[in-house]
Each structure stands twice: as structure tokens, then as C-alpha cells.
């Protein structure tokens, strides 16, 4: 059973990530606390995905420290992750959710009922018995969200979850993310779609070349970006 622990605040203290000679992330310090959604933006290769993976505990930093609710044990207790291309387990949609519930320590007797509720929450109740691999891209992403929510997370990390989806599917995903945020779940999401950032973000973290360039409330960031990189990025120039 789940211990009564918290994964927040999530604190990155001078965190670096090296791959061979290449610095992927460079001395980033950042605290993620409960509140409105935090959106990570920046050009491709700026380190968004790597930063989220570190936040999830899927990778270890080569320098600095990360702590979750004051603990440095990376075991994901109250956090969940949605990948850009989620892996669907080779079983039905409902079984995918039940699986996540089981891993999160949900008692067997309650899994069925909760799986139904979660599938309803992401609008997949009708497809519960469909093999997950046969769902469309948008449906798979919503199922991934249901699986993530099954962990009853305090913080939900999402890595460009709508990058390969059409507008309708993107809207469905955004609605689920927003409702999760409204229910008190901290959202930390990477996106390259500035429209999406405007729609969702409470605050923005702007990365360039593996460094944290700018962190600001969403409205401030869009109205008065303070760094030249951010201004160039918002203008649509290539930022290298």
C-alpha cells in the first residue's frame, strides 16, 4: 500500500546531465510546487524531454541533486508520466488501466470500479474492451492519461503529449489535462505549441541549449519576455 508521503515540492538543485562530452542539461535549479500548470518550452534539443525524465526519476543526473517532497529516493510514489508516444500494453483498454491501478497498489476488489471511472474520465468508456494497440493515436494518448491518473498523482509530467495528434484529439487531451489541474494535480508539461502553452500554462519555463533561460508567469512571459533567446523564440526565429 501507498505510504502517506508527498512527491512535492519537486526540487532540482544545480542539476546537470552529460552524455559523453555533450552537456544535455546545464546546472538547472528549479522548484516545482503545487499550483497552476507549469509548461516547459524551448526549441527542439533544448533539453525539455531530458528535464522531465529527470523529474520523473527515469534517469539520474550526472551532477546536482533532485528531491521529491524532501526525499531523494527516485521511486515514483505520487507522480505519473505521459510520454509523447505512449506504449500500449498488449491487452484491452480496461486492462491497461487495471494494470496501472495494480502497480499503484490499488486493492484488487476496487480496481474494476475505478478503471471504469477512469475510462469515463478520459471518454473511453465505450472502448473499454477494445485492444489498446488498435485504438487511434488520440485514443491511445487519452488511455495513457487514464493510466497516469490511475496512480492518483500529485504531479503529472507530460512530454509533448499532443505532438503527433490532430486538433480534435489535441483538444480532448487538453481538456483532460485541464480538468486534472482543476482537481488539484500539479501539471508539468513540455510543449512546442505556443497556442497550447497559452491555453494551459500558469507559468512557463523556457529552456535553451540545456540551460534554464527564463521562468515567468505565462502572461508575463508572452507579454514581456526578458531574454533575447525567448524573444527570438516567440517571434518564430530559429534559436540555436
Amino acid at each position, binding site marked *: 500500500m501507498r505510504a502517506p508521503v508527498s512527491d512535492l515540492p519537486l526540487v532540482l538543485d544545480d542539476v546537470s546531465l552529460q552524455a559523453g562530452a555533450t552537456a544535455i542539461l546545464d546546472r538547472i535549479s528549479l522548484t516545482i510546487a503545487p499550483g497552476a500548470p507549469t509548461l516547459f518550452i524551448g526549441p527542439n534539443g533544448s533539453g525539455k524531454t531530458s528535464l522531465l*525524465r529527470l523529474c*520523473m*526519476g*527515469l534517469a539520474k543526473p550526472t551532477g546536482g541533486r533532485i528531491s521529491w517532497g524532501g526525499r531523494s529516493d527516485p*521511486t*515514483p*510514489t505520487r507522480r*505519473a*508520466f505521459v*510520454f509523447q508516444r*505512449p*506504449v*500500449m*500494453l*498488449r*491487452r484491452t483498454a480496461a486492462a491497461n488501466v487495471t*494494470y*496501472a491501478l495494480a*502497480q*499503484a497498489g490499488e486493492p484488487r476488489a476496487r480496481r474494476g470500479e475505478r478503471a471504469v471511472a477512469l475510462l469515463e474520465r478520459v471518454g473511453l468508456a465505450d472502448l473499454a474492451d477494445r*485492444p*489498446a*494497440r*488498435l485504438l487511434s493515436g488520440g485514443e491511445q494518448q487519452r488511455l495513457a492519461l487514464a*493510466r*497516469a491518473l490511475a*496512480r492518483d498523482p500529485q504531479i503529472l509530467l507530460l512530454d509533448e503529449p499532443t505532438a503527433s495528434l490532430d486538433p480534435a484529439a489535441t483538444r480532448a487531451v487538453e481538456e483532460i489535462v485541464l480538468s486534472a489541474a482543476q482537481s488539484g494535480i500539479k501539471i508539468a508539461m513540455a510543449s512546442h505549441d505556443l497556442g497550447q502553452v497559452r491555453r494551459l500554462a500558469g507559468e512557463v519555463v523556457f529552456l535553451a541549449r540545456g540551460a534554464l533561460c527564463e521562468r515567468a508567469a505565462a502572461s508575463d512571459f508572452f507579454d514581456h519576455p526578458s531574454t533575447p533567446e525567448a524573444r527570438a523564440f516567440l517571434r518564430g526565429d530559429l534559436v540555436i
Partner: protein
Amino acid sequence: MPDHLSALQLILNADPTLLAIVQLSLSVSLAAVALAAAIGMPIGALLALTHFPGRAILVVLLNAMMGLPPVVVGLALYLLLSRSGPLGELGILFTPTAMVLAQTVLIVPIIAALTRQTVEDLWIEYRDELGAMDVGALGRMTTLLWDARFSLLTALLAGFGRAAAEVGAVMIVGGNIDGFTRTMTTAVALETSKGNLPLAMGLGAILIVIVLAINAAAWGTRVWSQRVTG
């Protein structure tokens, strides 16, 4: 088996001796596959998911053991199971049980090695997702085995094929006893030594057809279920 009949006649008459031989061959080999799967799949999955010093040597060893000579396995098991051997008290030499054991030893490496390869490939795809769901070591193993089930069917078939086709091991530990431990392959060997080449050939053809039918059925199942479950 009546000598004056051809293999075709034996089939057409549903000759009870022939049917008993076919049944024994199938049940021995299928039991060996089941047993080898229960042993080999966890070993393969464990090797795929763990890293320890000497693992590479173990993997090479396992791959090499796919080519274990059946007679050597048969002989080793014979010495073990003989009344004068360490496991003689079991009294299972010259019984179908001994044949199941021999074939199991032969095909555990095949199933384990193919499972390792399959699970290792799938693990690359699943690693992050399972990590994010905080799936423990045992859970990873069972999840990957289950999700690789269609590919693992091929491993099982490879094991079955080897078990059903081998003659050296079952001949030694089974003794080719008429009506008791005579399988398709030992019957072929026997009819060959009696110079009854047409009947031996016919029995061989029946064996090939059976193996072919099982493979076709398994293949069909795989295609069908993959279409259904994605």
C-alpha cells in the same frame, strides 16, 4: 506394427498401434514443451532484464546449448536415472517420464535463449513506461513475457519441433519399448533397421505432416490473435 501394411494403409485404417505411437509422441513432446516453457521462459526473461558480471558468458553458453546433441543428453540422463545412478530410486528409466525429462533438457536452452532475445527487444520499448508505473522486477518479467506472447509462440514451436524430431535422447532413456515408449522417431529408426524402408518413410511423412499441422495452427492463431489484439 503389422509389417505387411504400408504407412498409407495404417493411416486409412486408423491403426490403433500407429495412433498410440502418434499420441505418445505428441504428449511426450507437448509435456516437454510445457515443462521447458515453465523453466526456460523465466530464465530467458531474467537474463534479459538483469545485468551482472558473467552475464555475457551465460548468454553465449545458453545460445550454444541450443545445439546440445540429443544422444549426449540422453546418455547423461541415462546415467542419472539408471538404477545404479544417483536418481535410480525414482525408477523412471525406460518410461515416458524419462523421455519428457530428456526432451525438456534439450529444449530449455532453445526456449530460454529465444525468450531472452524477445524480451530484451521488448524491454527497450517498455522500459520507460514500466519505470514510470514503478513496476517491480517480478512484474516486469511477467508483463514482458505476457506482452511478448505471440513472439514467444515461435520459441515454443522451435522447442516443440526439436522435441518431436529428435530420436537420440528418447531412444536411450525410453528404450523404444513397443507400446510403451515407442515414438514416431524411434519407430522410424526401428523400421529402417528392419529394412522396411517404405514403412519407415511413411511414418516419417506422417511425423512431418503432424509437425507441419501444429505449426500451421500456431501460426494461424498468432496471425488471428495479433489482428484481434493488436
